[in-house]
């Protein structure tokens, strides 16, 4: 038996060596691909930010630390791993609003979205769904339905955002639901309402400050 069975040292060595080689290969692949991956992520996010904050020409990333916003120190063009919002500015350098990511339960699974918030007027100025598994043809209309998107061009968050049946929208704080996708629509509304209520107190003072001083921090030109 001793003759045929390799010693345990040999086994450990084999495994260790395999692990080592694997590690080296992966580090190499990682270094090669990481910049592209990060850029892809940022580009996807960036596109969404410009869409939910119409009129924006430059963006600043802000991270949340102990309830207040501070500039993001990471590399330009990367998505921070911490909780972050994105301030958008127009050509004149005036703050358009903040792009805020939010998520919550939908019909099938968690819906992730990004919305633009104008803290001065307390209105939502744009919304885009980043990720959802809603039913194709029904629930996924929250992404594709143009009339639904219209709701979020100027949606007041006060007294609260509410969902109403399609065609019954009468007040700036109401959202016309999609027929046949009432639940997904309501889910989006619920996510927005909760998130906006949470963020407004944080963003309003920050917006006031930044609106005056013009934009600092790192920006990404379009």
């Amino acid at each position, binding site marked *: 038996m001793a003759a045929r*069975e*390799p010693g345990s040292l*040999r*086994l450990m060595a*084999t*495994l260790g060596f*395999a*692990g080592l080689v*694997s590690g080296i*290969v*992966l580090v190499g*692949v*990682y270094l090669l*691909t*990481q910049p*592209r*991956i990060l850029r*892809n*992520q940022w580009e*996807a996010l960036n596109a969404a930010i410009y869409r939910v904050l119409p009129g924006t020409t430059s963006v600043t990333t802000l991270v949340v630390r102990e309830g207040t916003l501070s500039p993001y120190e990471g590399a330009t063009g990367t998505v921070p791993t911490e909780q972050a919002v994105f301030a958008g500015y127009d050509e004149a350098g005036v703050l358009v609003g903040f792009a805020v990511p939010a998520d919550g339960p939908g019909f099938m699974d968690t819906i992730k979205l990004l919305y633009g918030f104008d803290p001065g007027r307390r209105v939502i100025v744009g919304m885009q769904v980043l990720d959802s598994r809603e*039913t*194709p*043809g*029904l629930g996924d209309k929250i992404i594709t339905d143009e009339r639904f998107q219209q709701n979020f061009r100027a949606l007041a968050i006060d007294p609260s955002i509410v969902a109403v049946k399609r065609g019954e929208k009468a007040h700036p704080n109401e959202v016309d639901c999609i027929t046949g996708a009432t639940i997904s629509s309501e889910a989006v509304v619920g996510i927005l309402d909760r998130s906006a209520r949470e963020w407004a107190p944080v963003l309003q003072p920050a917006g006031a400050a930044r609106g005056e001083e013009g934009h600092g921090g790192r920006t990404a030109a379009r």
Partner: protein
Amino acid sequence: MAAEPQRAKALDELVKGLWRENPVFIAVLGLCPALAVTNSLTNGLVMGLATTFVLVGSSLLVSLLRKVIPRPVRISVYIIIIATFVTTVDFVLAALMPVAHKQLGAFISLIVVNCLILGRQEAFSSRNSVGLALADALGMSGGFTLALALIGAVREVLGNGSLLGYPLFGEGFEPWVIMILPPGGFLTVGVLLVLFAWGKARLERRWTS
């Protein structure tokens, strides 16, 4: 002198995976981690090709190293090799095809537990020459990719009225949404399995008569 039969054998190994031992329709192996995302031809192809890359790469390496790897730790070594290939393919896809990568999500990583891959190492690559192992891996993953593409195509055509994203039937088509939902995956595979069994039975009947 042995070159001819050797080549014939390699050819046989290559072809068997496509039909006779098709991993999906005949052996029903390696399906589960793939089925979830095979709701369009593109996804099926990407998933199939990613699996091909992993399977061919691992088989090559395992066959090359088959005399070096001590038996007691072979499975662990195989897993390390496979996981390395999978991580590589995951990163490369994320860098080069971000949209497809987002759709496939964690299921790319799950290739690592696809038992087709580990099974081939254990059953074939670790016992055969590099050439045969390569032929086997290519055949198996070819059959696998073909099957996933077929499933993806059926589901996309019925479920979305398109193929590779191009609409086939125009605006008036009512898509069968179920086909791109999970039940559609199960039902499609079920129907295809029955059709394959039926075709096989008919072929055999023709052969014998």
